[in-house]
């Protein structure tokens, strides 16, 4: 992404060593002025804010932030809290399943769309429109569809199968799958689109060669095309992954964390402790854990993506 032009940055040094320019500081002054708001934001909010939160996660702040440090107390309390443990488990289940399903479903749909089919743009429009909707809207619709009295369960029962049970939003054991159904509905269209773009980037000759060699289509996909699409998969993985960690609105809309606290997620834990339970320290510690999780996903990817490009 960012570096194709860096070798041509001659533009930025219009008059290389003219003695008329007194100071490095004033070179491209307008550019620097234009970037000032952005730099302030990056320095104060992105960098400063993050560091501030991490530092204050080591204090015992409650209603207001206080700089009385208590070491890793907040983290010990966090990991001893059953609600946090449930949040993490939910996030793991949701995360792993939504990665697998959205990649598989997204790829299969993209592969089908790539068969030179008719009505391609109609199908694309249908698969992608949920992505335009907010998680709140998504959550509320699926709350209604999964309503045990009127929704899917009610209908199947009214057809005569009276013992049929499908009430994910009211059953603590499976509530996270109810959220998963909604999340997949909203997000797989995007994965499909990214995958389709990747498939369109594959050279036609590959397909011809595979056909000449008599390799069946599914084998070509698995052994030739998918390995060739590695960059697309990695990008998609990073996008879905960093989105999953932020999972919040969907849960709030669909279940408000219930029944009990069976569908709590880390982002909701952070919000509740910061703005409702007036326990800032816990909120800071939990959000620092979220930051750590994202870092674990992003750092290797950034290293591969940007570190690799510089060498090549």
């Amino acid at each position, binding site marked *: 992404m*960012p570096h194709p032009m860096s070798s041509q940055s001659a533009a930025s040094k219009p008059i290389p060593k003219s003695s008329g320019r007194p100071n490095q500081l004033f070179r491209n002054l307008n550019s*620097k002025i234009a970037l000032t708001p952005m730099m302030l934001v990056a320095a104060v909010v992105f960098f400063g804010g993050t560091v501030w939160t991490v530092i204050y996660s080591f204090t015992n702040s409650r209603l207001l932030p206080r700089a009385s440090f208590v070491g890793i107390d907040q983290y010990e309390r966090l990991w001893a809290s059953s609600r946090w443990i449930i949040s993490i488990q939910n996030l793991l289940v949701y995360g792993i399943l939504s990665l697998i399903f959205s990649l598989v479903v997204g790829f299969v749909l993209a592969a089908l769309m790539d068969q030179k089919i008719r009505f391609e743009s109609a199908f694309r429009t249908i698969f992608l429109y949920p992505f335009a909707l907010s998680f709140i809207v998504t959550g509320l619709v699926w709350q*209604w569809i999964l309503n045990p009295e009127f929704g899917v369960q009610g209908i199947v029962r009214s057809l005569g199968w009276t013992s049929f049970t499908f009430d994910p939003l009211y059953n603590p054991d499976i509530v996270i799958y109810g959220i998963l159904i909604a999340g997949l509905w909203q997000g797989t269209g*995007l994965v499909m689109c990214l995958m389709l773009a990747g498939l369109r980037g594959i050279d036609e000759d590959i397909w011809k060669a595979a056909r000449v060699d008599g390799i069946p289509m599914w084998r070509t996909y698995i052994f030739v095309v998918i390995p060739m699409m590695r960059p697309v998969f990695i990008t998609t993985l990073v996008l879905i992954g960093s989105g999953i960690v932020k999972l919040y609105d969907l849960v709030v809309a669909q279940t408000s964390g219930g029944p009990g606290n069976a569908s709590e997620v880390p982002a909701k834990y952070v919000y509740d402790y910061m703005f409702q339970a007036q326990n800032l320290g816990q909120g800071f510690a939990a959000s620092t854990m979220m*930051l750590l999780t994202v870092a674990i996903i992003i750092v290797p990817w950034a290293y591969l993506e940007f570190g690799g490009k510089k060498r090549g």
Partner: protein
Amino acid sequence: MANVSILNATGAAIDAVRTEVAAGPRGKRPKKVLSGRNIMVYGTLGLAALYYLLPLYVMVVTSLKGMPEVRLGNIFSPPMEITFEPWVKAWAQACTGLNCDGLSRGFWNSVRILVPSVIVSIAVASVSGYALANWRFKGSELFFSVLIIGAFIPYQVMIYPLVIILREIGIYGSLTGLVIVHTIFGMPILTLLFRNYFAGLPEELFKAARIDGAGFWQIYGRIMLPMSLPIFVVAIIIQVTGIWNDFLFGVVFTRPDTYPMTVQLNNIVNSVQGVKEYNVNMAATLLTGAVPLIVYFVSGRLFVRGIAAGAVKG
């Protein structure tokens, strides 16, 4: 010949011709239309499309029924008697807490948040992207990398410091505060978008303008802006849908009377008091989803381009 031109006139006619050819005696060709493979392809896609369309259908259908009919049971059945009352009620009478003036309040709040946020964030980001693409200086690349990393930091880590800052300035809880927040968090992705676009324009244009004596703002206003209409549209799409759909910032940075539409919607539907009016809830949900849906259906391909670039925002 006339025959052929008539056949070409409609897609359905072409269809017919192809089936005819396929059913014809030439043996090897039938694969094209009714092969097992095609049935599989269209069958799967059709089923998937059904799954994706179902919730929209259920929303529309439920919102057009009266409550007695909703209670009768089948959420998939079309309304026997179409009523627009739930829509009116959702828009003008639904209650959140003590306010009973419906979603209209949230709608107008969202509009008042949306318009300035979109304008300011795009103005700042396009200038920044332009500076980063064409007027590099020592450290600008590093700065850019920091900005991109900023796009991945979970908002939860930066929210509280931002609350403190806004409280100090005295705009915490106001619409202005939320506009600033949206502008800040829209910056990384928009700057990336504009920088990559400007970097892709032919450099000769920029050099020629430099030689003719144009400065920073002149080149931006007279050369870059007129050439970058499509990317501005993409940026607008990203921002309009993103800001309209936001929930987290709305709930953190506003008060009940300044709640944006999504927050108000959630409060209406998930309120524990009173009898649940599912038809009103679905009408309200549709109303909230309408703006991004309209943007989506109107913008078509540009939306796809926008989300490919904007997906980072998650």
